[in-house]
């Protein structure tokens, strides 16, 4: 057994302290090197240095730390801890199994079966990362698909005027959507003309108008955003939900282009084997208008409970931009002449897509901040 030389601590000046601890450290390093990696010798080394009864560290505590004057104790303590961390880590590395885990300035012996082997089946120490919200994740995924197809991102206000939310999008004045039963409105709007009344946008489509008013064709934007409707909450309805909308305007944009674009996007989102199907539908601001179904992502189209045994799931609405929508922005941007340009628009519910992708049965969970729900998306 080598005879360790523990030097004397002359005084408590920083220089003496440094010298004292550095020379102890050097002694340890030298002894460890002499062990040659032989487990029995390393075990002896371990007992000699950190043994609970007569280890050197123990005696340094007894002889130096406890007897030191109060005002130097903290400086001593810091250096002692550094030494201890060094020795602990070195020992851990020297043994074939790390028997000691070091956490900063305090070391904790892992709950172990024997001194030399740790219970590796104990849980690891997870660093505790945050969790992306499933709606944000889904929205980013959808937006990313269109960005890769050359779309810029557009956004707009959540409180809109009747003009941008309805009138410019060709909703007639008495359209049911304009009713307060469907739309949440800001208080005290009665004294204003209908078009100036403020409401919570019911869709992200007003951003189409705002963008076209600002920017001449060609346009390719994708619009993610929060929207609201006067809906009582249940498992599938929420007064708050999210949409991603898109608009593409240029010369020679056709219905075929709309079909191809959405078919491509759905394949990106749900996998290349997904098929799309287009049905005539009706929206005030598009014509022709279509509803789009994708082949069921759960059964591949054979029919299951999720697709009501049809093999198809309805996912989005779209259509060619109605000429009257172009007319409504021509005052500000004469380039939107419906005889020269054409375009398509589409919109999808992010909540529904997220619920489908992740098997979420209650839309309310998305807006609850419930940690038990959120941590599933880690």
């Amino acid at each position, binding site marked *: 057994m080598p005879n360790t030389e523990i030097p004397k601590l002359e005084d408590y000046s920083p220089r003496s302290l440094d010298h004292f601890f550095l020379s102890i450290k050097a002694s340890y390093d030298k002894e460890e090197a002499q062990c040659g990696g032989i487990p029995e010798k390393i075990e002896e080394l371990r007992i000699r240095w950190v043994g609970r009864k007569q280890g050197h560290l123990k005696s340094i505590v007894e002889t130096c730390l406890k007897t030191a004057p109060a005002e130097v104790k903290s400086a001593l303590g810091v250096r002692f801890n550094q030494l201890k961390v060094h020795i602990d880590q070195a020992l851990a590395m020297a043994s074939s199994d790390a028997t000691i885990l070091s956490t900063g300035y305090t070391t904790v012996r892992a709950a172990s079966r024997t001194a030399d082997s740790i219970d590796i089946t104990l849980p690891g120490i997870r660093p505790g990362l945050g969790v992306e919200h499933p709606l944000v994740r889904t929205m980013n995924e959808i937006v990313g698909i269109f960005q890769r197809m*050359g779309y810029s*991102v557009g956004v707009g206000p959540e409180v809109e005027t009747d003009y941008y939310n309805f009138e410019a999008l060709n909703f007639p004045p008495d359209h049911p959507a304009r009713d307060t039963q469907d739309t949440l409105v800001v208080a005290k709007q009665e004294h204003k003309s209908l078009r100036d009344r403020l409401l919570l946008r019911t869709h992200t489509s007003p951003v189409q108008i705002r963008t076209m008013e600002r920017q001449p064709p060609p346009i390719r934007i994708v619009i993610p955003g929060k929207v609201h409707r006067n809906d009582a909450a249940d498992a599938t309805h929420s007064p708050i939900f999210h949409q991603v909308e898109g608009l593409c305007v240029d010369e020679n944009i056709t219905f075929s282009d709309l079909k191809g674009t959405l078919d491509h996007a759905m394949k990106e989102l749900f996998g290349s084997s997904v098929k799309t199907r287009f049905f005539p539908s009706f929206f005030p601001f598009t*014509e022709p208008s279509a509803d789009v179904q994708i082949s069921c992502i759960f059964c591949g189209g054979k029919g299951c409970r999720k697709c009501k045994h049809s093999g198809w799931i309805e996912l989005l609405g779209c259509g060619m931009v109605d000429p009257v929508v172009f007319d409504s922005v021509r005052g500000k941007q004469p380039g939107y002449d419906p005889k020269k340009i054409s375009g398509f628009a589409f919109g999808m519910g992010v909540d529904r897509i997220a619920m489908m992708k992740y098997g979420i049965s209650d839309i309310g969970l998305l807006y609850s901040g419930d940690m038990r729900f959120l941590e599933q998306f880690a």
Partner: protein
Amino acid sequence: MKILSNWLRAYLPALKVSDRQLADDLTLRGIAVEGVFDLGSSNGSLFEMDITTNRVDAMNHYGIAREAAAIYDIPLLPLEASLPAARPAKRPFPVRIDAQDLCGRFTARVLRNVKIAPSSGEIVERFQLLEQKLIGNAVDATNFVTMAMGHPTHAFDLDKVEGAILVRRAKAGERLRLLDGTERTLVADDLVVSDEQKALALAGVMGGWDTMITPATKNILVEAAWFDPGSVRRSSRRHGLHTDASHRFERGADFAAPPIASALVSRLILAAGGEIEGELVDVVVPEFAARTIARPPISLAVGEVTRILGKTVEDQPIDAATMERYLTALGCGIQPTSGGPYTVTLPSWRLDLEREIDLIEEVARLHGYNRFSNTLPNFAGSVVELPWAAKEKMLRGKLLAAGYAEAISSTFCSATEAVTFAPQPNSYVPLGNPLSEEVGCLRSSLVPGMLTMLAHNLNREVDDLKLFEMGTIFTGNTDRVQERPSLVLGATGAAIAPHAHAEGRAYTFFDMKGVAEELLAGFVTKSSYFDTFPAASGLMPQWLYSGRAARLVADGETIGFFGQLAPQEARQRKLRQAVFVGEFDLERLYRHALREPAARELSRFPAVVRDFSFTFPDAVQWRQISSALLGLAIAEMSSMQSMEIFRGGETVSLPPGHYSILVRTVFQAQDRTLRDEEVQGWWERIIEAVRSLGGVLRS
């Protein structure tokens, strides 16, 4: 709406496809069959339909049969509306339309000596399959005709009608008892069918009680009319009466239909006995005729069809012959003009067709959307990122890495919350029709939503939480609403949860401060600091715990407030443990540029670490100590940190009102190994600076 396949087939003798195929083909053309139910061998199928609101013409059997005829290019039988010869009348039944702006057409036919009896034959069979209630032959006849061709009609007990029929505006306050037994008080904007004494029916919405058909009815007046869609919609809304008739009239009925509907109803009633008296009285308002049945043709260019629709899966544009066939089958009249566009006359039952694009849509629809090819448009132009997208992404990335979960809370809050948390006094926006009072305002802050979410979790025994939300807050007033992007942090419980290998640690103010520092470090700022004010100053939000909260200021602007939640707020929300919350103004933060990383040369020379242990009176804050040390401007001091703070204990005793702090300094030069004398010199200057603050060196 329910449709019988066999009823459709009665109009389409040449239809060969199966019911299921028919349902699929209709659906793909926008006449959506949501469900197909087998009714047994000879009964065909029941189709559950979902017809879009613009296609009122297809909300009946004949209209759907017309679509099928167009799809398969097969003949559609005309409606059988022949009637027995009428007994001459002394004079035509008097009908007058007073409200010529609300009623476009009114037909009246008098049936005498009818026999009110249960329906029989075809009506009974079809009603039973449709689960439609049978009432009696006259009322069943009107319902049957609505289902057959979509035009609502009404049968009045003629003996209860006093004098002429007048279609007029109601008198304000006029009362009318309707068929549902309710008595309604009318306003001057309600259109009524009346006689010379009283209102008989709320036009286009519901008939009246007094003139309803009873088993004793002997003589009937059959009404088949066309009412202004807007008028019907207003009355229907006003009185909360959404009826099958109002549903159809308010979407635009067929102006040409009343005489045919009248004939069909009369035929069915007369089957049980009775006779017609006089010819059909048919009053037409020319202005409405000009807008409907006689509206001008529109032009359609083949080139436009291709420009909008593109090519079919055969890589061809839709050819002229195909286009002509589709439009003709839908009831359009097509006159080609040499070389130019077509002139297209429009069917009276399709008021939704008004423009060229409407016809293009019809061509696409009948061809089948899925028979157009999938192409991708060429792209020219550049992609523009939102100016703050990268900043938002950086913040989100840092928060996720720091262990915060993203949450999304309600956009709404109560008026009390809006007032309490608004960044400026009384700057918040109430809603006109909130879902409930607790959500009566737009959120003026993200804090109440965060507190609700923290409480939600704590109430479910989830005690260790780190959440954030990024969203819009709304300030201003009901005339001008300002929207600002905001970030809220909320945390409670353990910052590090205890586990098998180490003890846990509670979340503190300094955890949140650290996050604020990390977030701010992502931006370029000239100067930033944290400060705090006493509660009485009014400079700190009242929802924060006075003395345990701080303000973050960057380049002279307040970026946000954070700290422990005020006890009164915590109590009110029954939060049973300390909660930390902070809100940051992202609009202000986003005004700063993102910090671009820049690498510096790493020194090849050794660093020297020096620790100092000082005792300070409590009044001296770290900010003063650090600025005193930094103020020395020692270029070689590469870092300076507070390592340990204690206020006395078992091993160390301190004078009361004092604390001890261990400061670690690191010295390093780029160009040389530091000499002991140099370090010693700095050491002395540091001690001197600390002494001037009232500090005492302890070692």
